[in-house]
């Protein structure tokens, strides 16, 4: 199986986001970057598939040089090699997908795994964009996956209030939801080996962003509300406030 896993290089979840000087993106100063948490499920799914069926797992990332460290995190988990689409300028989601689709189109992928969401731009759209660009099926937010020998597969995706069972067949793009598996931790040996695994660089076709960021701002700061009181005695006053002031009941 020729397995690709797309990963994104994102600020750690505890980052205090500050708007940068151009007013259109965050200030990267002091930000620690991690492998996007959902992509750990995607990497694990790729590794498990390889362990079951054989083949090769390639980690794919679009971005500047700094993303190589994130590709190495996937390699440290056990993937075989990396594919770095070297895009120095920020791209929107369409442009990112286009860069990946161009890089993959002649590589005969059997399956492309993504995470459900990149926790920077929270787009939830990469698997659909990629599937359409590569003219292959896509299934998003898969919390369960069962791939048969003939490449037909069943996935369960989370929907409002429950799950939806989807059937489809490879080659396909599948985005991973928490619950799909338990991602393994990289072992020291894996981290050492990752340093020597090959990462191929490819140049993307120039692209003009379709989605233009006009400005980035911080959401209005919510003023800390009032402490109504302590213990059960405060309940009467709370209900009054919810009814008369907040008008939510």
């Amino acid at each position, binding site marked *: 199986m020729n397995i690709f896993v797309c990963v994104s290089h994102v600020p750690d979840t505890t980052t205090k*986001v500050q708007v940068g000087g151009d007013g259109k993106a*965050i200030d990267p100063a002091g930000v620690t970057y991690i492998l996007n948490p959902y992509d750990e499920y995607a990497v694990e799914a790729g590794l498990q598939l390889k362990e079951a069926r054989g083949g090769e797992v390639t980690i794919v990332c679009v971005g500047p040089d700094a993303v190589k460290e994130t590709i190495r995190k996937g390699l440290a988990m056990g993937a075989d090699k990396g594919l770095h689409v070297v895009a120095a300028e920020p791209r929107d989601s369409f442009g990112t997908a286009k860069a990946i689709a161009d890089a993959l189109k002649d590589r005969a992928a059997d399956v492309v795994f993504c995470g459900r969401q990149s926790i920077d731009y929270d787009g939830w759209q990469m698997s659909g964009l990629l599937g359409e660009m590569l003219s292959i099926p896509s299934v998003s*937010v898969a919390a369960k996956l069962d791939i048969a020998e003939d490449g037909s597969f069943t996935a369960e995706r989370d929907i409002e209030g429950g799950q939806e069972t989807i*059937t489809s067949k490879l080659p396909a793009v599948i985005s991973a939801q928490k619950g799909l598996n338990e991602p393994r931790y990289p072992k020291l040996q894996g981290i050492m080996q990752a340093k020597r695994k090959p990462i191929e660089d490819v140049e993307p076709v120039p692209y*003009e962003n379709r989605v233009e960021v006009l400005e980035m701002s911080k959401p209005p700061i919510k003023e800390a*509300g009032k402490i109504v009181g302590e213990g059960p005695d405060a309940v009467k006053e709370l209900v009054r406030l919810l009814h008369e002031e907040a008008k939510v009941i």
Partner: protein
Amino acid sequence: MSILVVTEQRDGKVKKASYEAVRTAAKIAGEMGTTVTAVLFGADEAAAKGMGGYGAAKTLHIADDRLNLYANGAYVKAVAQAAEKEGSDVVMMPATALGKDLAPRLAVRMDGAVAPDVTDISVDGGDITAVRPVYAGKALIKVKINSAKKVFTLRPNVFSAGEAGGDEAAVEAFAPELGDEDFVTKSTGTSIASGKLDVTEAVNIVSGGRGLQGPEHWQLVEGLAEVLGAATGASRAVVDAGWRPHAEQVGQTGKTVSPNLYVALGISGAIQHLAGMSSSKCIVAVNKDKDAPIFQVADYGIVGDVFEVVPALTEELKNHIGS
């Protein structure tokens, strides 16, 4: 020319988030001197006409049994054909599980782009601009789509559907041309816990955290939720502990919610939890630690033990709602 809105129904009932999208699109269409055409898969003629109550001039009603369950390839083709027929450059839909799956494929098919999960949308000098939260709501970006074809998904519960009123929509039966190849990927069924509200669709939410001390105490959360007609949510700590299902998790790696009322019981208010719920309209917190960060986003707080406060609150609300 019209703005196309993809609507959803479940068991014949149109989802509230779809009405919100129709209403919002109608406002934008009004400012741009055009109208709204709703696309409805399934349901009946009355539901199709009913789109008018929320501002749609017309409904393309698709009655095709193959589309009763979601199939992204077929849905994309059907909507793209509808957009072509109506000459629509702009398509909107709610950012539901279906909308989030459909929108990106549709955008590529139409040679456009998506602005996903927007929380504000307006017309600015002839262009549509939209605001969307990024970095789990820690920042907002105002965006404009520069391609001719534009797809927007609207975060549920943020835009108002308003009251139904006004004329019925003109209903036109629409039969998209679909082949077997469009059903390679398809839903074969759903399992939806009956009577259980999903946190993303609920008007009110009561969530519990580690302060509840064990799954056996969840009747406190459920009791309060019942009086409020609320869905139950949870922090990641209790989901990881196996006390509650992941479907209930609110936060950066769970669900993003914006209900009218969010009640946090025994939840500390970690940054990743706040990411999922800080856009709630009114937040109430009960926590025994007066310095818990949840109090910094709560509109109203009670410092106290959930085991004492919650039963009293449930009782008081019963009396209040009863009277």
